[in-house]
């Protein structure tokens, strides 16, 4: 990579680091994993920076890389092992009817399958459209709509009228 490209890359990463970390945290709800996912994403972006820099929407490209990194990690076998946690896990079936506070949102996100969770974060935190979200996740717009239905229903009451 040429020096000018590298400077462009570094500026791009620095400007978006906070946003990436926040979205990664919402996906995994663990800062260690979030930073790991962001690290892997940064490496992938560096590797394909020529392609990234020519993309119509570099932000969307980067977010797609990050989201897919997380989904890939979720499929790895060590996620099935017992993991230490500082917090006591929520009891099954404790998802609230309406989400009105951070604990309710945390419970809701944890209750969703990884892709559903990604849909929720992309659509309602990062404000990507249905079509953009579908492209990022490699699924149809219809699937985005159906997968966001449950989360949307729970969130709707809390933020009535917003969606």
């Amino acid at each position, binding site marked *: 990579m040429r020096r000018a490209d590298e400077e462009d*890359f570094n500026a791009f990463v620095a400007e978006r680091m906070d946003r990436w970390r926040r979205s990664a945290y919402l996906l995994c709800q663990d800062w260690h994993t979030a930073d790991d996912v962001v690290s892997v994403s*940064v490496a992938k972006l560096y590797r394909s920076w020529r392609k990234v820099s020519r993309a119509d929407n570099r932000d969307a490209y980067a977010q797609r890389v990050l989201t897919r990194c997380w989904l890939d990690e979720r499929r790895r076998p060590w996620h099935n092992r017992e993991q230490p946690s500082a917090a006591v896990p929520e009891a099954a079936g404790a998802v609230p009817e309406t989400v009105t506070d951070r604990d309710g949102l945390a419970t809701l996100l944890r209750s969703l399958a990884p892709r559903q969770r990604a849909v929720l974060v992309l659509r309602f935190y990062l404000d990507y459209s249905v079509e953009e979200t579908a492209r990022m996740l490699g699924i149809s717009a219809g699937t985005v709509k159906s997968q966001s239905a449950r989360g949307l229903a729970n969130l709707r009451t809390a933020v009535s009228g917003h969606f």
Partner: protein
Amino acid sequence: MSHQLFDELIGTPPPVRVDVPGIVRRERRGRAARRLGGSLAAVLVLAGGVAVAVPGQQSGPPPVAAAPDTRFRLLFDTSESADVTARRLSQELDRALQEVAPGATWFWMPEYVGEERKPDGQPPTFIHNGTTDLVVGNSGVSYQGRRGALGISISADLRSQDDAGFHWPCRLPPGIQEDSRYRWVCAEGRSPSGGRTKTQTQTYTGRRQLSVQHLIIVELPDKRRLEVSITNMVGVDESVVPAQPESPLSQEQVTAIAWYLEGRVKS
């Protein structure tokens, strides 16, 4: 309002643990692409498996000085200690190369395009990030008419308690596709001190110029890992070219360098 709720859940993010300069350096060397799931993998279980040599009873290569124990610790707790560690690594690597490949010489290899030329004959200057637990060195090596790049890194697993770390098995994690452009030979094993190891030889089989890389990753005490690699490629970024079809050192020689360095490090 939804954003507010999400932001409340996020709270105040802890300090960033994403080492962008380190990632860039590793990617520059073209190795991270071949590290399979290096950031999220299995737990490092040391559990006393690493033998701590008693001074004077080391089985590794004899130290240069006559002191009973001339090994050193990998300290990165301050910028100063990291500097000392980096300098010591450079010296030890020079000794390791001469022991494993007598007559081998160092030659300057740029870190980036346009870097001011430095003299040949110097072992790598190890780069670190102050208190960051990562140190990397890379330099050109010439041996028996063959030239290439020798790279060494020591890094910490990013977590101290969670079950994450380097992916030690040769078998790829589910969902990770093997890069069909490379032919891989991989073996799992144990170092003389009992740490886990993974050795790999990867040969580029695509239409581009032939590249070959021998690599070994060794589990060190204190949840660190050592990586030593040699390639037949010289140059940097787009100007990288194969110097000859074979790398200057063999997989066995790279492994011997790793054993030497491992034997010099105190837990």
